[in-house]
């Protein structure tokens, strides 16, 4: 593998993890907020 392939793999890992974790949190938040609304009703 060329050096650029390793470079691209490392950067991809960073951004996939960042956006993946943000998405996971946003999903959890949305689910909880709808649960709160349901409980309030």
């Amino acid at each position, binding site marked *: 593998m060329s*050096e650029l392939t390793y*470079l691209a793999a*490392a950067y991809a*890992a*960073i951004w996939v*993890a960042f956006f993946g*974790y943000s998405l996971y949190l946003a999903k959890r*938040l949305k689910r*909880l907020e709808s649960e709160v609304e349901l409980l309030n009703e």
Partner: protein
Amino acid sequence: MKEILEKTRLAKRYVVHHDWTRLGAAALVLLSVYLAFIWAPPINAPLQSEFVEGGSYFASGKQSFTVDGASVTGPASIDVSSIEETDSAYVVTGLLGDGREATLTVQKADVTQVVAKEGSGGDISRLEIVHSVFQGESWRIFYFHVGISWVMALAFFHTFVASLAYLRTEGQRWDIVAQASAEIGFVMATLVLVTGSIWAKPAWGTWWNWDPRLTTSLVLWLVYGGYLGLRGEGMERQSAVYGVLAFASVPLTFVSIRLWRTVHPTTIDSSGVNMGSSIVMVMLIALVAMTFLFIHVMSLSIKVGLAEEKVKEAKRSIRE
């Protein structure tokens, strides 16, 4: 209403105004990616090397040496048979695993620190040097590897402070902050290991070795993995004690390259910062970009924690 306001006060302290954190993070990340990929040149980075007559030396994938008159690039292990000093260089001769003779020359102009011990015949029996080695394109991983290491330390420091605050006040909000920061720190610690490992393959010829920095980083990852495993209903106090004690592994990981001999690049040591000003500038911008991302993700994570708390409370009050 008063209760809800109280709960959101902490989230506000972490700047939950997403418009500017998102915008700031996005702009800085784009700028640092541009600088790290396009503007910054591939660099020379410092490497600690120890040559011992009769000992073995590991030449990294970034080092060249001569075999049968031809230039060969590592990684390779050389059994050192002699170390000589000329006017302009240190010349290390030894045998490769296949029995061929290899000669590794380190120009004195590339050496920043040197400790040499003379042998009985007047030659050098032991040579410890810090010398700059050209790193190539894969070195650009460094800009974000350092950034995520910084965010990891920042997150675990939040866990430490929040755990202490929980033990003092037993306030639920501190437990939420401790969990949120530990989660982020754990994701960052995973990324530190992954990106470091990806860099190590072209540099050292292997994905992993038991170097002190790598080993302490793995221990740190396991320690906080244990912390997240420990967390659960009714475990707030135990988690807080663990969160305080676990922080000891963070400074240990950072000073490991000063406490023990390492093949990990030492960019900052007792002699100062071993990097050019352009490299430092790009690295600092990447650090700020990662800090903005941390603020954004942290605020989101705290919001999730507060919402979970609200749900628990609502369920309790319905049951009552």
